[in-house]
């Protein structure tokens, strides 16, 4: 039997507000343990939370970017459970009345573009961190992260493959980054993902028993864990066994998921409205003000790139995959107005080098202006495309300008016809046999002669002139 995976993701994103969600403590990462704490985020008796309005604002941004409906009145709820990194014994989250519901994002899949529905987006506080002593049976708690604002973005079970899940995640990360509300770093935990996955026979409606996957701290791990879980569940179903509803942890080292807790051990979080916080009232004016301040989002930018720069969909997709890359492209185009050529150079040369070095566009030494200048030199026939590639290599490693490199290395094209003619004469004289063969009909040898000429001129001869004169002479 063929099975169809049904996948839904719960994504937590740490918001880039300067202070915590319910107190004034700093959210800066990496401070000495327990230095960014106060009675409120430590949950001391008598302390009370006060909502940071920026958290609401950031959440509204994400809600608008994902086409969600924003609740006029929403509410915080307490999620009750005991853990040493949770100082109050409950996490302030949202439950019955989340800030946003019923949105969607569109992702590219092998089946074409798909709309992935968002069930809800809600605000909550992060927990602290446990540090286990390596030498003694002691654990320490660092409460610096306690109260750092999070949003949880819950998708509907609309994803069908691990690749879908990865592109959905990338889409969310890009959106969060475009909105400048989260840095989207999965490895550092500022973006975290849990997955719900079940299998059902293709063509049937009823959902199978799902498992929840945790502990996947990279895009790759999400994909691998889902792939593993699909194989595991399929094997069980094929043997006629049942899937147990449980939470499973991804083990990166062993490439497998292991059971963490079953349904019976699942927490009863005893959610109820938090009586310490009043309802959050959001009026149309607030929403419109936030809408007005939103930057252009990936979808809109992609369409604009296709429309205004006449780029093919693939180019537009790649160039808008990050705001920084899109900005780079636009800066280069402003200087050198041949968008497709700029796009080709970015997508082939530039991105290849960056990928090799595992760098982002932010870490690139070549400025968009420098790239544009290089393309201008090609356009004006000052250097050939081929030489330009080696010049670019030099620019990429040294950060120097194209003109400087070309001057230093004498790479300007030779456009003097008589000079080219004499080189061609030399080549023809040295290759009598090939000249005979060519004239006998072996037309393919034309390229050989061009190559020889270029070799003798170290690639500097203007290819157009070489072609013309060669034709004449042969």
């Amino acid at each position: 039997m063929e099975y169809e995976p049904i996948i839904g993701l719960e994504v937590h994103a740490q918001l880039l507000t300067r202070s915590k969600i319910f107190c004034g403590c700093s959210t800066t990462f990496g401070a000495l343990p327990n230095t960014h704490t106060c009675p409120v985020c430590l949950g001391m008796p008598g302390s009370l939370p006060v909502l940071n309005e920026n958290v609401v604002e950031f959440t509204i941004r994400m809600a608008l970017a994902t086409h969600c409906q924003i609740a006029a009145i929403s509410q915080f709820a307490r999620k009750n459970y005991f853990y040493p990194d949770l100082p109050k014994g409950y996490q302030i989250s949202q439950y019955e009345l989340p800030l946003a519901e019923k949105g969607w994002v569109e992702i590219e899949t092998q089946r074409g573009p798909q709309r992935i529905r968002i069930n809800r987006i809600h605000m909550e506080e992060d927990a602290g961190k446990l540090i286990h002593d390596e030498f003694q049976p002691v654990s320490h708690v660092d409460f610096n992260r306690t109260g750092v604002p999070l949003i949880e973005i819950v998708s509907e079970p609309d994803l069908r493959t691990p690749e879908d899940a990865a592109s959905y995640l990338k889409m969310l990360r890009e959106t969060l980054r475009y909105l400048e509300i989260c840095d989207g770093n999965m490895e550092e935990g500022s973006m975290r993902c849990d997955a719900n996955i079940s299998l059902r026979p293709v063509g049937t409606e009823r959902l199978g028993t799902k498992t929840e996957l945790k502990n996947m701290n990279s895009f790759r791990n999400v994909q691998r864990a889902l792939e593993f879980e699909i194989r595991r569940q399929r094997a069980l179903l094929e043997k006629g066994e049942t899937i147990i509803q449980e939470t499973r942890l991804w083990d990166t080292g062993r490439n497998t998921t292991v059971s963490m807790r079953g349904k019976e051990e699942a927490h009863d979080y005893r959610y109820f409205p938090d009586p310490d916080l009043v309802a959050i009232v959001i009026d149309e004016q607030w929403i419109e003000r936030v809408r007005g301040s939103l930057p252009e989002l990936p979808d809109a930018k992609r369409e604009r790139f296709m429309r205004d720069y006449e780029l093919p969909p693939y180019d537009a997709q790649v160039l808008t995959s990050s705001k920084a890359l899109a900005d780079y492209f636009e800066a280069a185009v402003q200087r050198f107005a041949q968008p497709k050529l700029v796009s080709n150079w970015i997508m082939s040369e530039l991105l290849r080098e960056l990928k090799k070095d595992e760098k982002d566009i932010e870490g690139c030494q070549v400025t968009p202006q420098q790239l544009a200048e290089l393309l201008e030199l090609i356009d004006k026939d000052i250097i050939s495309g081929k030489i330009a590639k080696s010049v670019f290599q030099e620019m990429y490693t040294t950060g120097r300008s194209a003109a400087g490199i070309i001057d230093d290395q004498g790479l300007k094209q030779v456009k003097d016809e008589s000079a080219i003619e004499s080189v061609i004469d030399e080549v023809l004289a040295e290759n009598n046999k090939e000249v005979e063969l060519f004239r006998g009909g072996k037309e393919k040898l034309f390229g050989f002669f061009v190559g020889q000429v270029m070799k003798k001129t170290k690639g500097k001869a203007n290819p157009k002139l070489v072609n013309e004169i060669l034709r004449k002479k042969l």
Partner: protein
Amino acid sequence: MEIFSLTMHDLHELLVRRELSVTEAVRSFLERIQTFNGKLNAYLTVLAEQALQEADRFDNGKKDLTESPLAGVPLAIKDVLCTRGIRTSCGSRILQQFVPPFDATAVEALHRAGAIFLGKTNMDEFAMGSSNENSAYGPCRNPWDLERVPGGSSGGSAAAVAADLCAGALGTDTGGSIRQPASFCGVVGLKPTYGRVSRFGLVAFASSLDQIGPITKDVEDAAILLQAVAGYDRRDSTSVDRPVPDYREALRTPIEGLKLGIPQEYFIDGMNPDVVQAVQRAIQTCRDLGAEIVDLSLPHTDYGVAAYYIIAPAEASSNLARYDGVKYGFRVPDAKDLMDMYCQSRVNGFGFEVKRRIMLGTYALSAGYYDAYYRKASQVRSLIKQDFLAAFEKCDALLAPVSPVPAFKIGEKSDDPLQMYLSDVFTLPASLAGVPGISVPCGFTAEQLPVGLQILGPHFQEELILRVAFHYEQATRDQRPKPAVL
């Protein structure tokens, strides 16, 4: 008259007129505490040295006595309010060593007004109780009869005021914890509207119900003390940003022409007949003062106890989760593992009633029971609030007893929680509705136990209930004996 017997406003007048030094006043109370606290157990912590130092600052001119009516006035603070650098135990073993690094907003306000703190008062553990028997530090006793309870949970504050161990005190009221002990001890106690006084620094029992309020020797003192602590606080989102009227000024207006409602549900079978009689007499007095008395109904009163004993424990079960032995407070020394540490610390750190309410609340919030209990109780709460809103369309304020019975004997009800809970029947509805209420002494039973008249008003109408209480008190001023037992 003895210094310690003076009301706050009379004492302050003497201080301002330099007929008395602040140090003398403080010493007078400290001596009295020294003599009687052993019997009463009203204070858990006495701040003798600190109080004398503060007094000295007034007497040597470093602080100004005229800056506020509280300047130089010695007060007591219920041990559920955070005091910076001073142990705040909440009457619990689990917070035996808890020293808050900050002051509650209300405490800070009193500090600013120049009040002097004599100490922290006894209470039912985490404010859960109606008798002060649930204190981990032993019961507080009623100054009118040492065999009897002072009421609760602010029993220590009420007893301290009644026995003249302070000039006035702060208590907290979640379901009657100011009004009931005030009535049992024959003093004035006011529970403000929910949101009138900041809860920041009030260690939470039931966050949607808790309010801080004054317990004082007369109504004018209650107005003075409320004035100092009322107001918006950005550190408490549930405090309400609206102007605070001049409460003391409001007392002057006579109550002639006011419509006072008598809710029939507050006079029920099984009440102590002396209590009924005392309250009836008080109603007559108000009529004599020119108020119009109207009978009316608060039809959902009967459901108050049930709704309260679901909502309050539910919130408590969550509020008290932080006492897990991890960061502060009591932790068992040799737990096997994390779960064992949690369980043993909580089993040994909390008293019986607190554990009972944690269990009740946990159950009421559990999956599968939430709708039947917590949600239903919240709906009932809305109906009770509606009752009050409807009643206040027909009258300006309500008159009722505070408690169906006077102070009972220590141990009398401690084995029967339901009986104990039922004794809160007349104070719980106002807490659930969030409306303000005041308890003012209205006579005695045949056994010379004080009885309290409860005056309830619309939201944020503290000045109205204070005014009614004040004129009633003035009309009956000559009927105020002091506890004879001391």
